[in-house]
């Protein structure tokens, strides 16, 4: 099954992303924990799409207003997760080096979340007993 290898690599990706985020906060030269607010965005990011898939049952129609609104909101959450460290760095709340580490972590985590949806998301019968 394609499940286990994908799951392991996705969880590795998630761990690496969180590592970058923690490095950006905890390294002695930075030592500012403001970027931990991004965890809020990481948790929020999959929610709109999951809600839209549970609420709307017709997977056969190509266009679906609820799914598009969910994609819009998810994109907004991703953009906000990139914007917040940049605004922090411009306001000199964190250092630019910390901002760069946090942005790298962002990229990895969102790639992991996207990978999760691509690998485990598209199934014909949306059942929770997938694995």
């Amino acid at each position, binding site marked *: 099954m394609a499940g286990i290898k994908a799951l392991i690599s996705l969880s590795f990706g998630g761990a690496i992303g969180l590592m970058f985020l923690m490095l950006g906060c905890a390294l002695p030269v930075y030592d500012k924990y403001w970027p931990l607010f991004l965890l809020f965005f990481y948790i929020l990011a999959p929610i709109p799409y999951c809600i839209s898939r549970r609420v709307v049952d017709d997977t056969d*129609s*190509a*266009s*679906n*207003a609820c799914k*598009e*609104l969910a*994609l*819009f*909101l*998810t*994109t*907004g959450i991703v*953009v*906000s997760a990139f*914007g917040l460290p*940049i*605004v922090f760095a*411009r*306001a000199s709340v964190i250092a630019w080096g910390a901002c760069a580490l946090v942005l790298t972590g962002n990229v990895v985590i969102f790639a992991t979340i996207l990978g999760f949806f691509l690998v485990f998301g598209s199934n014909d019968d949306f059942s929770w007993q997938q694995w």
Partner: protein
Amino acid sequence: MAGFLDNVQWPACLDLGEKRNTVASVAAGVLFFSGWWVIIDAAVLYPSQEQLNHAFHTCGVFSTIAFFMVNAVSNGQVRGDVYGEGCLGRTGARLWLFLGLMLMFASLIAATWILFGAFVVVPSRLVYPGLSIFFQNLLIFFSTLIYKFGRTEDLWG
């Protein structure tokens, strides 16, 4: 001379097909939220009333209200395709869309006016906050257009 570019083709004329709605939604999301983060950035860097008058934030708020107004009615409702009358029917849908678009254009014009009237012609003031107000409204404007007209409502792509 006429039509000498007729045989020139766009190198990758995007045939998005089924993914058109997805691409339009994502593009609209990027633009809309980038607009808001631009103004958040300016508000954080220039918090005082002299540098960025707090009343100027109303343009962005009205742009956002207009975004939701314009996208609340579907093209089908404006054409009268849907069965089952809403409270006001097709005319109501058209009026709502008209008001939303008018609010959107008014916010964009107001933002341009603020940029030039309150920032560019006042030499003692930094122009960046004015630019951020302008770009916020411009980005939300394009986001509205893309979200409204970039998606197709045909069920089969």
